[in-house]
């Protein structure tokens, strides 16, 4: 049986194709004001990797903030259940998932059966989402990857007082003007975002083991900061860290 899961996020579209329960193809593409182009590109990449055509897909389940903007899926599921479903399959020992996307952050509790007893979401504010990190990396004129690497070089504990991305940007610019070492600023930003994520995660009570997923979870600076903020000994990062929800949707399609 061939199924697909589509995660149409606020920034990127992720597609996972499953063939008899195994991942046969994956595709990711970045959307702009319109998501249609990214939707087609992500499909093309996933289908090419799987070596099949769109007609071979028996069922597609969709998820994600911008799913409503596309056509071509059969049913939908929530991001929270998609994440939990996938994580139960990838690593059933995970009890807490922290998923950080471009415009949303989620903390999800998962029980031994893969069900979700509790979760918390922030979708109203960029603080605690990937967009915050991106805005700050733009203000400092470095790429998001460099931003994380810079942060790792610092051991300073500089606070960013502003929670709001707009205010934090002014603060970062002031710090640059004061000639604060750049790694210290990058670390301060990572610490600020991880503090927001940690307080959201504490609303559901963080229970190990913890998995950290989503586009922003790829950032090394944020990985370290969040681990420290939640005082965790270890954090699980799945191999396909950005495809987790899409994988969960594809699993659901195969039910």
């Amino acid at each position, binding site marked *: 049986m061939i199924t697909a899961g589509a995660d149409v996020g*606020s920034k990127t579209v992720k597609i996972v194709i499953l063939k008899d329960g195994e991942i046969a193809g994956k595709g990711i593409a970045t959307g702009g*004001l319109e998501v249609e182009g990214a939707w087609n590109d992500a499909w093309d990449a996933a289908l090419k990797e799987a070596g099949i055509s769109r007609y071979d897909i028996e069922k597609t389940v969709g998820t994600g903030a911008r799913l409503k903007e596309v056509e071509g899926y059969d049913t939908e599921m929530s991001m929270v259940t998609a994440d939990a479903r996938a994580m139960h399959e990838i690593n059933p020992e995970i009890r807490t998932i922290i998923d950080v996307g471009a*415009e949303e952050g989620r903390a999800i509790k998962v029980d031994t059966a893969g069900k979700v007893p509790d979760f918390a979401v922030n979708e*109203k*504010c*960029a603080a605690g989402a990937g967009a915050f990190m991106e805005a700050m990396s733009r203000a400092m004129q470095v790429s998001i990857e460099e931003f994380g690497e810079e942060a790792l070089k610092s051991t300073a504990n500089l606070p960013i007082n502003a*929670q709001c*991305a707009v*205010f934090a940007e002014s603060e970062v610019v002031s710090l640059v003007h004061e000639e604060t070492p750049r790694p210290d600023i990058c670390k301060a930003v990572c610490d600020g975002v991880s503090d927001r994520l940690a307080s959201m995660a504490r609303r559901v009570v963080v229970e190990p083991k913890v998995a950290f997923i989503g586009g922003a979870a790829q950032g090394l600076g944020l990985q370290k900061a969040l681990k420290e903020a939640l005082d965790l000994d270890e954090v699980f990062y799945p191999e396909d860290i950005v495809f987790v929800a899409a994988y969960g949707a594809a699993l659901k399609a195969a039910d």
Partner: protein
Amino acid sequence: MAEEEKKEFWRWTETNWASKDIDWRKGEIISAGVDVGSVSSQAVIMVDGELYASANTRTGYNSPESATNVMNWALEATDGMKLEDVNFSVGTGYGRVKVPFSNKAITEIACHARGANYMYGPSVRTVMDMGGQDLKAIRCDERGKVISFLMNEKCAAGTGRGMEVIADLLQVPIIEVGDRSFDVDKEPDPVSTTCVLFAKAEMLGLLKKGYTVNQALAAYCSAMSYRVYTMIREVDVVEDFVITGGIAKNRGLVERLESHLGIKALKTDVDYQLAGALGAALFGKVLYEKKKKK
């Protein structure tokens, strides 16, 4: 060259002014108030409790320097007054403890209520201060004393800084935002996202959908007015009601908020951004009198 030609749409006019009708040398007490906000700084000089001179500038990266600059600019407008001629200076606002020449620092909540009382008269009971980085709803009595207040300082949605970001995005000079937001056939639905960062993306989407710039401005002003309305409803809005701070100059927001509330805000000729500094200068006069008595 290209860099120099880049327009800064958020930029508003900085001003200084002094009254021609007052001879400060005949005054007994000269008090000053300096309001160092996160976005703008104001200085007010009063002679025996009457507004004599003022200045309004953008806050720089350095608070003490911004305080000195704005005070010097107000002094420049006067007929030869020097900083030494000022008997008592009070600092207020976000950078109030960083005013190098001040004799005391007082919170902006107290100063705004006191300043609004002077600007609009003793009938003022509710002051909505809409500044660069925060929103304050203040209830006060007939002497301008604070009874209760509410504050949002965590989020740019509903603040002047948020509006500046939007003006820049749409490349509309900030002083034109209010008028242009009414230059639409029909009021559009308000922008649905709260976060300014997300609103930027949403508004680009609206333009792409065929919204005119004026419609997009209307959608943002409308969203902002609802946000402010939700907050101000939490304090009992008792008349007379006034709006102070830079946003008070944006009719796109003021008139929409007035229509949600069903009441009008009082208007005055005094620069709305001076309320905090005015209050500080008024406190300065009282504090100087107390000091002299001792």
